[in-house]
């Protein structure tokens, strides 16, 4: 059950829009079926009403802040903050954006919500099949939190769904339901913070021999289609210039021919296992001390590659080597911008 009251949330959003304190509010709207939602942009008080807050609210909205940096949602001269609904896992993304100095704290108006967990469509699909849930219920039903689990509310009653079989894996080991930073919190603050353990698959993989590990990852790399969805949905991939398509800075109206001709070409467009590996390893590495395990990459991947196993490893290492956890506090310095005389160095001859 959530302590976030939908009416209270609605009033808060309406209040923010009426007072003209924010330019746009980013929330969720019901998506293509009961299990899905998509980002919703509210710009005036009379648009309020389409927003939802339910177990279907899986997408992490922090990405929309990053999108706004490159493709402004509103007129560029509108300097008012963006309003955004954040859960206990998403706010870490905002903290990282602030730490990386992409945004300032005052540029976002955070409406915190209490989220007991959201659904994973891939799991839902399996459940739909196994439980023979009717097409009508899938299309027209609505998800609700029910006790510790989730249910589909339909005109003919509620169909309850097992928590383990439907929730995102990150929700199954949730680190806290409400955000650490917020301007308004709708619901009751979740004060217990449970530090996340790296998934046991990570430890299992670590124990394998190099060739066994490579066999596992080569299979993953070879299935990647290089759509870059994992990058484009990621809360830490906010670089203007990406290693795999380094053109945004090099190709501008005033850049000189030599710059354009000599721009680095780290990896080709060919989607072979090694090129894909380069991309995925590089991306994972860039998450060192920045990945917040929102597991959006896993969710966005159209081939459903276990990308979180890369990112959880990087997060685990940051914790073990440097006792560093991304998204803990805006006061922290970015991991790689600092150094310490006592850093581990046993691997160096």
């Amino acid at each position, binding site marked *: 059950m959530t302590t976030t009251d939908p009416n209270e949330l609605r009033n808060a959003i309406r209040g923010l829009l009426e007072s003209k304190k924010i330019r746009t509010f980013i929330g969720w709207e019901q998506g293509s079926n009961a299990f899905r939602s998509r980002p919703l942009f509210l710009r005036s008080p009379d648009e309020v009403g389409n927003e939802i807050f339910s177990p279907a609210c899986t997408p992490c909205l922090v990405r929309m802040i990053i999108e706004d940096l490159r493709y402004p949602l509103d007129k560029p001269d509108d300097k008012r903050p963006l309003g955004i609904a954040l859960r206990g896992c998403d706010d870490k993304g905002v903290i990282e954006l602030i730490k990386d100095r992409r945004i300032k704290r005052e540029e976002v108006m955070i409406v915190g919500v209490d989220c007991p967990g959201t659904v994973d469509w891939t799991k839902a699909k399996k459940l739909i099949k196994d439980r023979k849930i009717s097409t009508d219920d899938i299309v027209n039903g609505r998800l609700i939190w029910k006790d510790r689990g989730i249910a589909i509310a339909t005109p003919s009653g509620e169909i309850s769904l097992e928590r383990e079989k439907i929730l995102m894996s990150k929700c199954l080991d949730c680190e806290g339901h409400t955000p650490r930073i917020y301007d308004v919190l709708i619901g009751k603050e979740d004060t217990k913070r449970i530090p996340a353990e790296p998934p046991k698959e990570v430890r299992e993989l670590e124990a394998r021999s190099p060739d066994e590990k490579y066999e596992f990852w080569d299979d993953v790399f070879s299935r990647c289609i290089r759509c870059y969805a994992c990058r484009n949905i990621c809360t830490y991939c906010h670089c203007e210039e990406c290693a795999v398509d380094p053109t945004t800075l090099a*190709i501008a109206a005033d850049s*000189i*021919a*030599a710059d*354009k*001709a000599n*721009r680095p070409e780290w990896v080709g467009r060919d989607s072979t296992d090694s090129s894909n590996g380069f991309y995925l390893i590089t991306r994972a590495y860039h998450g060192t001390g920045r990945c917040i395990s929102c597991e959006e990459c896993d969710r966005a991947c159209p081939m459903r590659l276990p990308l979180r196993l890369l990112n959880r490893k990087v997060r685990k290492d940051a914790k073990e080597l440097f006792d560093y956890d991304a998204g803990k506090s805006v006061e922290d310095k970015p991991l790689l911008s600092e150094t310490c005389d006592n850093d581990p160095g046993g691997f160096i001859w």
Partner: protein
Amino acid sequence: MNRNPYLPDLATVVDVRQETGGDRSVRTLTVEFDDKEVASSFTYKPGQLAMLSVFGKGESMISITSSPTMGKALQFSVMRMGRVTSILHYLTKGEKVGVRGPYGNGFPVGEWKGKNLIFIGGGIGSAPLRSAYSYALHNRKDYADISIIYGARTSSDIVFRDELRAIAESGGAKVEMSIDKPESDWDGFVGFAAMNVKRLAPKPDNAIVITCGPVMLIKTVIKELMDLHFKPSEIYTTLENKMKCGVGKCGRCNIGPVLVCKNGPVFTVEQIRQLPSDL
């Protein structure tokens, strides 16, 4: 089975001529196919394009600057812009490029017989124009008056400067050149090409205008021409877009349903007005 349209033919650079200097300098490469059969089967119209390859760097779609009346060697005027064009600039005599083509529709030079031809260009836009006016000058008696109005930023940015002077001296065409800012030894017009068009006020009767150059030039020139009562169907221009395949398959050079590589690059202003503003 038909020929593989993606397979370039090897050609040798036989001459390199530096046209202009600076960061975006222009060089004209003259290339000859290595295979005699390919050379004789490669027939093209003025305004058509070819894909030049430098192996390991990639391909680039370049207008054929020469006219089919100039013999079997092909000429390409290349402005140094990015990866492939920079490498093309490093090529010296005897080195190889890959060429495939010709692509695109080209100018309907046959339909223009008996007309006054007015070529208006600027910068590297003179590359396709040169192909067309060279063709017209070679078949001089097929056409009525020919004039060339060309603008560049400075006098050293004028592509084919000597050639244009020679044409003016031979009397084959009237040549009007302009530069954007005054220079001490420049006795021609100073101002943008569109201003020069306004000043010269060419007559629309029995005339065809062919204009090519930077987008701003094309836009301003067309505006002037409209004021001078030219018909949109009598103004030809060439469009460009990023191209990869050159044969209408890779799907990126479209403007609405029209593919620039296959249906273009030559369009009349009338045709362009039918297209969505996806330029």
